[in-house]
């Protein structure tokens, strides 16, 4: 029988005291997730914009793939990446397995389809809205992209936040390719899983509270952004 109030109390103590182990794990988690989001954003925004604004052969196929990948099981991504990065795998020479770089790659694979698809939908909707006007103005599509992206900036930021939310809550893939090595690849989600299995619920709870706080912050930001957009 666990002493729930006691666990909460100790967890808050760990957070308030800024326990070095806790801080290290949180910082590594943020570093990995933010890196993944930045890389995914640089891939997804141009990809989603092109898919949203242009019609070309293969567009529906790519869109279908992206939509399918949105629901990709993280453990499958982790497994595939593990096979690629393991010593006997094709990218084994890079020696990336069980490093934070591998975790960034895994998260990036998981969130790129999400940000791309949301970007595509946003740009496609805007483009439909302006389509006749663009023709009437004689505007080539390439010249409309930058102003459309400016118009879509709040929606795009929301998409990026959604990607960050998914990345920071990810556990399966990063556990497989990161290995949950102490001081090297231990992030919030993998630590929660490990510490819970060890019965060290105070640290797991402290990390859970921080993870929830991050999630609430992201959700609140998305609501504020949506509201500012509709004013």
């Amino acid at each position: 029988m666990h002493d729930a109030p006691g666990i909460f109390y100790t967890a808050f103590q760990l957070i308030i005291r800024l326990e070095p182990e806790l801080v290290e794990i949180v910082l590594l988690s943020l570093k990995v997730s933010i890196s993944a989001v930045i890389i995914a954003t640089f891939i997804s925004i141009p990809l989603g914009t092109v898919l949203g604004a242009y019609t070309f052969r293969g567009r529906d196929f790519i869109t279908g793939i992206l939509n399918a990948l949105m629901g990709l099981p993280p453990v499958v991504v982790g497994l595939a990446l593990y096979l690629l990065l393991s010593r006997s795998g094709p990218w084994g020479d890079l020696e990336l397995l069980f490093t934070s770089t591998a975790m960034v790659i895994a998260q990036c694979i998981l969130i790129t389809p999400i940000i791309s698809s949301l970007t595509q939908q946003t740009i496609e909707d805007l483009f439909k809205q302006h389509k006749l006007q663009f023709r009437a103005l004689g505007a080539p599509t390439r010249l409309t992209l930058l102003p459309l992206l400016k118009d879509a900036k709040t929606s795009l930021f929301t998409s990026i936040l959604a990607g960050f939310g998914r990345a920071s809550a990810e556990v399966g893939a990063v556990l497989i390719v990161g290995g949950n090595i102490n001081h090297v690849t231990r992030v919030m989600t993998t630590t929660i899983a490990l510490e819970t299995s060890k019965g060290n619920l105070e640290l797991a709870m402290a990390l859970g509270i921080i993870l929830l706080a991050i999630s609430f912050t992201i959700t609140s930001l998305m609501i504020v952004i949506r509201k500012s957009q509709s004013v």
Partner: protein
Amino acid sequence: MSMQSQHQSLPLSMKQVCYSTRGAALIHDFNLEINTPGISMILGHNGSGKSLLLKLLHGVIGPSSGHIYWNNQTPSIHQYWRTFLLQRPTFFNQSIESNIEFVLRIAGIDKSEYKQRCTQALEACGLSHLSQRNTTSLSGGELQKASLARAWVLKPSVILLDEPTVALDPPSVISFENIIQQFEKSGTKIIMTTHDLAQAKRLAKEIVFIDKGEMIEQSEASSFFVEPASIQAQSFISGELS
């Protein structure tokens, strides 16, 4: 008010033009010649094909058969001497000035001319005081004027307007019409659609009356309203055509 380009756009000629979509012939055997400057008003009831006709004239859509020539040139949307105002224009969620500059960028105008051209166009449309205002905060009348300024900034020799005042209140309509008349006086050819007889009487030099996608009558405005040649036009003027 002297922004108009010297591009020789007239005569406008449509020969046996048809436009069909999904098996329906929306414009058929349409012949039209417009040679004279001034305001040519395309008149007809809702659904008669007025907007479609303007889209064909501008090049937004191409005819299914037949030929359209502006001074022997086939229309293309990239001929910036001719501008087209939509009934419901759309804008980027930016200032009026930014929206106007976008058009200058499309047309390949030198950046050094942006400021002067914007100022002149906004002034001509009475929008100087709103140049930095975001288009989302403009009234319907202001949006139509902004659309007109966006068209005027290219110094067009022809402006096509698709029922631009249909959703405006009477003062805004008069204000808009005054601007159109100023443009016409400066030498710009105006081709405009409307189903508003009073507006046609106020503005038109020439009437092109269409019904069910067919050219019914083309005549001087003065004679059209006194003595329409076709039965359809007579019914339309007397309010019987539906």
